[in-house]
């Protein structure tokens, strides 16, 4: 049985939320490239990111800061942001 690190688990969760909320096709949380640029390569915009942030807030019980959105441009960066806020 594979034991995932907290960071790996968060990364998968972020990818999963992105896929669900943006209705992305032909990609799974496992195949979602964590360093793919969400703005340039996936085409998400501020409204999409706000939606994803709200869903992740619910899940992790943390608070996203609206001013931090511009920094959250990849799955890995979002996961790291959550991990930092969780103290993981």
């Amino acid at each position, binding site marked *: 049985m594979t034991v995932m690190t907290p960071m790996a688990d968060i990364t998968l969760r972020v990818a999963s939320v992105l896929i669900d909320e943006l209705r992305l096709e032909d990609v799974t949380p496992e195949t979602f490239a964590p360093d793919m640029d969400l*703005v340039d390569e996936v*085409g998400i*915009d*501020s*409204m*999409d*990111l*706000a*939606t994803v*942030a*709200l*869903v992740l*807030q*619910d899940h992790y019980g943390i608070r*996203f800061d*609206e001013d931090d*959105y*511009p*920094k959250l*441009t990849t799955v890995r960066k979002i996961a790291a942001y959550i991990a930092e806020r969780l103290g993981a």
Partner: protein
Amino acid sequence: MIPGDAVTAAENTCGATAGGPRAWKFADILADPRIREKWEKVRRYFFLRESTYDLTRRCNIRCDGCYFYAGEKQHVRGNPDPEAWRRLMQAEKARGITYVVLAGAEPALVPDVCRACYAAMPLGTIATNGLEPIAADVGYRLHISVWGNDATSRAVRGAEAMLERQTENYRGDPRAVFVYTFTAGNIEESYAVADYLVARGCRLTFNVFSAPETYTGSLRHSMASLMATRRAMREITRRHPASVLFSGYNAVVHTHALGLHDLFACPYPRRNPSTSLGLGRSFRQYRADLTWDRGAACCVPDTDCADCRHYAAGSAIVTAKMFRHAVDPTLFSAWLDYVDTYLAVWVTDYVKSPDLVEDLVAPPGVAREGCN
């Protein structure tokens, strides 16, 4: 004061959360089926990415307080070549723009340019004074600017019989939305003008005069005129619910003592240095010579930001601030009503739903005593 016109804190207490009422999860807010339904309805339009374009420097009237004839943009050399505009639209599409607002000075005076833009980029709106008909094969939404009754228009815009000519051109036109701009001097007549438009099968929405930076005239609002404007907006909306595209939250945020920038931190490039996401990344305001200047880029350039309550600005500014409205069901519902209104005003064939919130709700982060 008319019942329902006082801004109530409701359960959101102006968006306060710390140490206050329950902190809502987004999923719990969406558990209300009415909220969920409207959320799913509006979010389908999150793909809209706008930019704005001055099609020409020419206009057939001169209005007191016109933002186009303020600042530098009025002095550029206009490019009337439809092919140049078609290429620009294609380039805009390639960089992700999906929605265009064609304005300044009077787009109806360059019909071939309008047609070229429409052929390349079919989602958008033309802002026009409505005195010249725009060909039926240009399928954009049309916003017809109204600044009062005919006597007022004669005084402020120098044009005769404007309502008659505007409604002659656009009554029953499914593209048309009449935009009544409230100034400090045309509030009382708004009721009669609305009656006139509705009687001729016209839909309308509201704008609030937002003074250009150098403006020294008499149209600029005071607190008293903003409150009178809010009452008029509410009363006209009640009187003509099927014809007026507006919501209670529209009325609050566009007549607030604080302008849109101070309420919501305007995300247009002119006030937003970030280029990584959203309007700061994608929005451009092209002048009539097809150039643009990031430092001046917003939907109403040369407007005094502190006085900006413009409907076009709000459509982007308020809509972009979803995150800060998603703190409780009441505030989020008010935001949904606003976005639903914005889409009905700007997107052809989009039908506005009944509002979720009847009472007036304070914007997020505004202390209750400052709500109105």
